[in-house]
């Protein structure tokens, strides 16, 4: 039997820290996706998933925030019941709501890029609140845009009706979630629990 000698190449301390946080934010997004709030205007469930996207972008920055939500999508495709209503599987991603799932890493990356403007996340109290708010709203717009186009394509309907069914009806609920997260930002709560010094 041939023996193999190879030195172990340890992952750097900072990377381990960011990676561990990306993992728990992905798990948190999966947990929040299970809290379905009945919503009268659209058949798609209204969940707290997007809160996970906001938090990933705000707290982890562009690279690790995007990785976190990418992990969420991959774990779901691999078969863990992490999508809304304990859904799992590649089929959910090709289905009508798959666009939202695929838009999450992109949105988290964009929020992180706007707020932190570098790969490593900054401490949130050093970023002005309006920038954080703008970042979240742009992220939300990205989620709607990709999600609705995907919905329209997967059910073969026009973009306009897709936007209504998959985007516009969610605006009140999503603004509510954004307002809740913004009040975490403005209250300094997120800056307090942010793990970056």
């Amino acid at each position, binding site marked *: 039997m041939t023996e193999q000698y190879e030195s172990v190449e340890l992952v750097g301390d900072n990377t381990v820290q960011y990676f561990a946080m990306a993992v728990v934010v992905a*798990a948190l997004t999966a947990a929040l996706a299970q809290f379905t709030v009945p919503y009268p205007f659209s058949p798609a469930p209204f969940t707290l998933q997007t809160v996970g996207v906001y938090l990933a972008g705000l707290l982890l920055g562009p690279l690790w925030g995007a990785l976190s939500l990418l992990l969420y999508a991959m774990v779901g495709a691999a*078969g863990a019941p992490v999508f809304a209503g304990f859904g799992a599987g590649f089929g959910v991603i090709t289905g009508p709501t798959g666009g939202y799932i695929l838009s999450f890493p992109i949105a988290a990356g964009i929020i992180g890029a706007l707020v932190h403007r570098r790969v490593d996340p900054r401490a949130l109290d050093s970023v002005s609140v309006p920038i954080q708010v703008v970042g979240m709203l742009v992220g939300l717009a990205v989620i709607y845009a990709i999600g609705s186009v995907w919905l329209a394509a997967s059910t073969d309907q026009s973009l306009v009706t897709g936007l209504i069914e998959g985007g516009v009806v969610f605006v009140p609920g999503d603004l509510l979630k954004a307002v809740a997260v913004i009040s975490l930002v403005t209250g300094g709560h997120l800056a307090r629990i942010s793990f970056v010094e």
Partner: protein
Amino acid sequence: MIAYEHGTTLFHRLDPRSKLVAQFGFAFAAVTTTEPSVVAVLSLVALGTLAVARLSVFRVLWTYRFVLVLLALGPLFASLRFGPPWLALEHAPPSLLAGYQVVLVLFVSAAYVRTTPVRETRAAIQRHVPGRAGQLLGTGVGLVFRFFPVVLRDVRRARLALRARGGDELSTRERIQRLSLLTVEQAFSRGERLALALRARCFSWNPTLPRLAFGRADYPLVAAGLLLTGLGFVQVLGLPAAGSLPV
């Protein structure tokens, strides 16, 4: 809910990589086709897959009921027009067909989920996604799978605690705010401990990977997956032979 269940079916014995290729090929071919004959053949394939995986059609449909409601409303929204005559019913059948194609993909992916443990998919990712990205994604998938139930329990407990203290009286905004704050704090303290644990266990860029090996039955499945992917490309590019291709 459909998750991995231990079993002895043919699919349980297959390599996750061949199942991934076949699944991708099927999905690509199914969502790109408009030919009734291709849809019919793919329907038979999907039903056969469920039978081999010992999954009932009703169980799959019930699991994905949210998706189905959305798909069922597709034709209605597709027929809406903003102006007289308001309804254009000729747009409903294509939308119905598109929804049906998604259901076929759901069948096949449910069979994958039922017969493939997450650790095997994780091994496939870690082996084949190149470089450090592959290592992080592979390990990450394994860890998120492990942490999901734990964090879910944290969120449930936080919500229960909120309710016990009269949280139902609060506005929706305040409830979301408090729930997010509580759960993020808990998740981050878990993240700190996870980082420490990873460092203590020498988390490295070049770990020993789990073993994966192709068996005899894997090769035809990979071939079928590649064929279906090819069919998908033919359909996307709109080549004239698309309808008459033998499947």
